[in-house]
């Protein structure tokens, strides 16, 4: 038996649409509400107040976001909380032309990892960049790895204690 003899019947989308091949459909209904836990709960509380809170492991000498209550390196408790700055540097970025469900976007989004000032080197989180242009050429001209950025917050009365309380990060003068 060789791969030349492999089986498997390829179908086309029309085969399903025209009923040539029968399908059974099912729509999943699954709503979740996650308890945020101790570390992320406090992190989200901080965001509501316009602050980015990090935790620190004294033993590993490491300050991290998103915060956690145990150090995954040495497994000691991480119970020292520090407020870090809402500025940082772009570690890497991309330019997305598709939404979460793969619908094409009219205006591209710019996801990035931002290394947060006040955290250990190389430590950051994923967010979006804004005020960097509407098309690929302009975005690639204006966004550089290593560039300084600052968080743009929602107005205080609209914050809900979510990562989206930061609208995006925008370029900051050096």
């Amino acid at each position, binding site marked *: 038996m060789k791969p030349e003899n492999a089986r498997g019947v390829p*179908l086309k989308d029309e085969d399903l649409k025209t009923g040539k091949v029968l399908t059974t459909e099912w729509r999943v209904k699954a709503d979740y509400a996650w308890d945020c836990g101790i570390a992320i709960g406090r992190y989200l509380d901080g965001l509501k107040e316009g602050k980015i809170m990090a935790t620190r492991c004294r033993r590993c000498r490491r300050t991290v976001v998103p915060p956690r209550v145990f150090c995954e390196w040495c497994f000691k408790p991480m119970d020292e909380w520090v407020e870090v700055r809402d500025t940082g540097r772009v570690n890497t970025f991309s330019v997305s032309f598709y939404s979460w469900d793969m619908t094409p976007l009219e205006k591209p989004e710019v996801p990035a990892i931002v290394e947060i000032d006040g955290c250990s080197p190389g430590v950051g989180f994923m967010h979006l960049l804004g005020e960097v242009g509407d098309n690929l050429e302009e975005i690639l001209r204006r966004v550089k790895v290593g560039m300084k950025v600052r968080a743009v917050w929602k107005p205080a009365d609209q914050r809900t204690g979510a990562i989206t309380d930061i609208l995006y990060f925008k370029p900051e003068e050096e």
Partner: protein
Amino acid sequence: MAYQRVAIVGAGITKFVRRAQETGKELAAQASKMALDSCGMTMKDIESVSLGTAPDAFDGVHMKGEYLADGAGATRKPFMRSFVGGGSGVYAIIHGWYHVASGHFDTCLVVAEEKMSSTMPHPQAAFNTIYDQFTERPLGVNLLWIFALEMNRYMQVHKIPLETIAQVSVKNKLNGLDHPCHQEGITPGPHLTVKDVLESEVMVWPVYRLMVSPVSDGAAALVLASERVAKRMTDKPVWIEGVGWHLDTSYWTNRDLYYPRYVEYAARMAYRMAGITDPRKEIHVVEPYDPFAYKELHHLEGLLLADKGEAPRLLEKGVFNRDGELPSCPSGGLLGVGNPISAAGTMKVAEIFWQLRGEAGARQVARPVKRGLAQAWGDLMQVGTVVVLGR
């Protein structure tokens, strides 16, 4: 260490297709049957079953392992399912290796199956649940983001031009045309060029459409046997000489994505077990995991088969071509054959099996090969799974 030597004695595969008429169980059964037939065994000879399959959400079937078990010949047999996202296809073989190496069994059927077409219209929503539910998903993520971020980091650190990454797509997609099971339509034609890749749609820059492996249905299977059984059955056993696996933190934005350290640790583990001290000389053919074009280069560096940042230059020199010094993805890989997640990893091991036996037909590499490596990768830029095979 005191364990039985384990050989691969048979391999089976289905066609990789965008949407298969067969159910997951039926695909698993087809690949399993072919693997058994290829070494003259029947299900009666199989003492244990190791199954690899990715998230249940793709099939919309909870406890998919148990659901698929009948199709994998596991009824009334010792059965285990293992799962590390995209790494599952090689993880399942490591798992199967344990079954036999431990002395518990003399044979193990390893089956990997994926049916990604069941989520309509696209499995994207299932993929998105890999991201952190508190700090990442609310941003409106899609799966391509994480790859685009890693690819850009890798390109920036080593100053790699897009043209070089596109060359991986060309190599693998053209290689894939020689694989009888390749998914139709994923290679635009036999004259594909770097220019074509860079003229394909930008999905999430720097990822272009032709740098992404497709959504696929398919299955693959391998028969593992102890030395005692293998030697009775075939004069061309392919030995599992080394296995390795490693997991990094899920805090993926806290580490530098330019280098897959977890792949290096998995590779070092496998090399140590195989007694390999100079992998660049001792590995003759390699199937690194290539769900995205840059990933092949990234993984070749993690596997210590190139220095950090050197893989792009070796690619440009033709080292990784089928007639090169270190043929890489001679099967066509995920970009050229298709990507039914766990089945794609097992397909890579099957390819090394066929290459080492000289049975790869049009895909057979030019240089003589005695030892090869297959690797898979998965989760949040997190897991490396490696097997070293030798004859």
